């Protein structure tokens, strides 16, 4: 089914919103927005995709309540101090050694540097932390849209980097990561967020074929 993916401001607003939500989630800031959670859910519901994205939709149903158990579950999965059940780092999945700060990390670093970005606290915080990869993707998409609106040619460049990064990095490991979460999580919330993440990134990846038509 080939859809018309042409530039649609609402569609991009939705993407930015989801990216930011996932970033907040992985960086552990979401809990501070606990009081606004219902509002966030409403916005999320409004930004529903027209077509059915099973994982995304299911995920949305599971994240209705943000409980304290979810916070503990989150920390057990991604923070520690025990052995992480779903390490939120690319190299933990893609490096044969399963370590942090490996070639995958520096490859991601190279991508960031293409657009003149670098991580604050380089070599302390792995560049391939999922929160940073999500932030980077969101940044690229935002730049693409901004350039497009201003009629600048550079929009294509950003979009290319966007898909390339998705294809070479986040899109390559996030499913495994989310499956780890689904396997080990003890809360609906974290399971839901894993589904949401998986559904969202997979859909983004699938747009690669229609890259030319997006903007």
């Amino acid at each position: 089914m080939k859809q018309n993916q042409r530039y649609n401001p609402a569609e991009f607003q939705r993407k930015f919103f989801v990216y930011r939500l996932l970033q907040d989630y992985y960086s552990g800031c979401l809990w501070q927005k606990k009081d606004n959670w219902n509002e966030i859910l409403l916005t999320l519901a409004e930004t529903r995709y027209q077509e059915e994205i099973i994982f995304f939709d299911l995920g949305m149903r599971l994240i209705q309540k943000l409980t304290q158990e979810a916070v503990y579950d989150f920390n057990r999965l991604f923070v520690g101090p025990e052995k992480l059940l779903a390490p939120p780092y690319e190299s933990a999945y893609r490096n044969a050694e399963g370590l942090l700060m490996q070639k995958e990390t520096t490859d991601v670093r190279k991508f960031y540097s293409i657009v003149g970005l670098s991580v604050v606290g380089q070599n302390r915080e792995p560049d391939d932390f999922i929160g940073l990869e999500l932030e980077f993707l969101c940044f690229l998409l935002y730049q693409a849209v901004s350039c497009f609106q201003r009629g600048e040619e550079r929009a294509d460049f950003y979009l290319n980097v966007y898909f390339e990064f998705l294809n070479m990095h986040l899109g390559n490991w996030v499913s495994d990561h989310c499956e780890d979460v689904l396997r080990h999580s003890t809360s609906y919330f974290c399971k839901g967020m894993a589904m949401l993440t998986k559904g969202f990134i997979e859909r983004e990846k699938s747009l690669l074929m229609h890259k030319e038509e997006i903007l």
Partner: protein
Amino acid sequence: MLKKERITRHVCPRNCYDTCAILAQVRNGRIVNITGDPAHGYTRGKLCAKGYSYLRRVYSPDRIKQPLRQCGRGSGHWVPVSWDYALEMICQKILDLKHRYGSTLPVCLNKYSGNFGLLNNAIEGLFNQLGPTTQVLGSPCWSAGLDAQTFDFGNNYNSNPENLRKAGLILLWGVNPVWTAVHSLPYIYEAQKEGAKVITIDPIFSETAKKSDLYFQVRPGQDGYLALALAKIIVEAEKEDKQFLQNYSLGWDEFREYLKSLNLNKLSRECGLNQQAIKFLAGLLINHSPVFIWVGFGMQRYANGGQNVRAIDALGALTGNLGKAGGGVHYANLRIWNMFKFNFHKTGYKNRYLNINRFAEELNQLQEPPVKMLWIANRNLFLQDANLRLLYQAIKEIELIITIEEFMTESTKYSDLVLPTTTFFEETDVVPGYWHHWLALNEQAVPPLHEARSDLDIALMVSCKMNSLEQGSCTFPQSGDASSFLDREFDDQAYSLLGIRHWSDLKDSPAKVNIPDVCWEDRIFETPSGKFEFYSQRAEQAGHPLMPALKEQRKPAAGKYDLRLLSPHSQHSINSQFQNLDWIKAIKPEPAVLIHPDTALLKSIVSGSMVRILNDYGEIVLKAAVSGAVPRDVLVCYQGIGDLNINRLLSGENTDMGSIVTGNHGLAILDTFVDIENQTD
């Protein structure tokens, strides 16, 4: 991206004989490889399997990355907190306790040997500047042997162990270097090639025993009987070194009379070797020279452990081996540590010291004031302490438990607050060792990962916070870095011993310390008499027999728990360290208890049976492995068997000696008696 590459120097800070020097290859701020440092004259560019696994540690996804608070001790409900929050929590608690009890004594530190870097002692320095605090004193490891050698020689020195290569006979007495001190092996093999005999004396037919020319199976903890039997035979054959004894020893006549009074039958029975074997060994000691005796730590982890070491010292003395290149009785060397003054440790307060080996008991009994805050540093207290049941009891009354760690351990499980710390690749330090005569530098190769902080930085940060909350409440420095602290630790004397002008010169190469290559070569001992003391007034003053005595060994209660459980060090871990690393897991054999075939038959146990080992203190369940390498009445369970906590079975009995050098008696770990049951019954 331009590749920036450099090589940095490091030292392994583990509580290990070898204190290896390491090189790290750092590319663009990441360590990409590590190797041994060939510039180190003793470890010569090689590491052990544990050492080669270090990168697994630095870049493990499972490192503790930020301060974490546990909501409900033991609940597993953790939340990350900022450093500022953590510091506030700690300092508020200290001040609150100080105001409630009118003293800082409710604040307690339990620190030991997890990291041997000089500046890893910073937390102790911090505690010493908070006011009088409660701290632990002593060592579970080596105390009895240190005292024994202090009585006999006056201090704890060894010859440069490279001298092993000059030996005519090497007695590896209760030490398993093939597993736990691999860097000494080339020197031993070199001697062997030149015709030296290598003999292992051990209750267990260890890997070292397998590689030796001869092996003698001594009954556990009865090494002193064997040493005295050998001494008796040698003296009866009039093969003692009369010249040495006459000029450089004190109490020889008394000791000779004492030897005469001993019954060889009894000695032989007690040490478990027949007289023919003992005489054969005595013959080797007479006919080979020099004799290098390496005294391991195991034999002194008994209620009569200090006496065992004294008896072996006496054997080394009367055979005239002291002060000879390639000879001597070698236990440990404190000379490298003694180069440092530990200036940042000094305290003007009267701390309350608890015996590290009776921590749980003493903690339970403490009143006026009780301990209300416990800080665990460089230690996995809840796995490595004795009498754990009592410890769990004791911590119930403690309001805040803090642990500094790299990884989740049994101790972090019981902590309220966990502070993430750096690996040695992320900090600057020096690591004094206790065996070879080298000192090497640990350069900072990479910035601290995540939010980890070094022990020193944590101490500095706590001091800052204390003073911001209450001016003058902590006199530990609030600023400075590893360099400024090291500047103060290295004085002219240290520099002259090292032959360098500044500690940073160690970036170019580790340095050989200019201390006597052969200890006691001048035959001037540091005892009160200046001689080797068979007969030690100091020992008597400390409540021990004047001469190495045949002290009754601790025995199992009749009819119950009649198997002795030995828990020596394993090849792939140091106490509980390294076990969490995947590489080590991959090569480490499955935890098992070794049991003699006859005992196994009696108990209907076969290799692979699940067995329960138990006594009044606790129990553990694991697989059995039937093995002729262990004596009949002994079970062997190597340390570091994962979550199976052998220390649950320890009673916490102490060794006979230890208080002179370490402040308290050691832990008689090997006086542990148990029963074994087939779990499938």
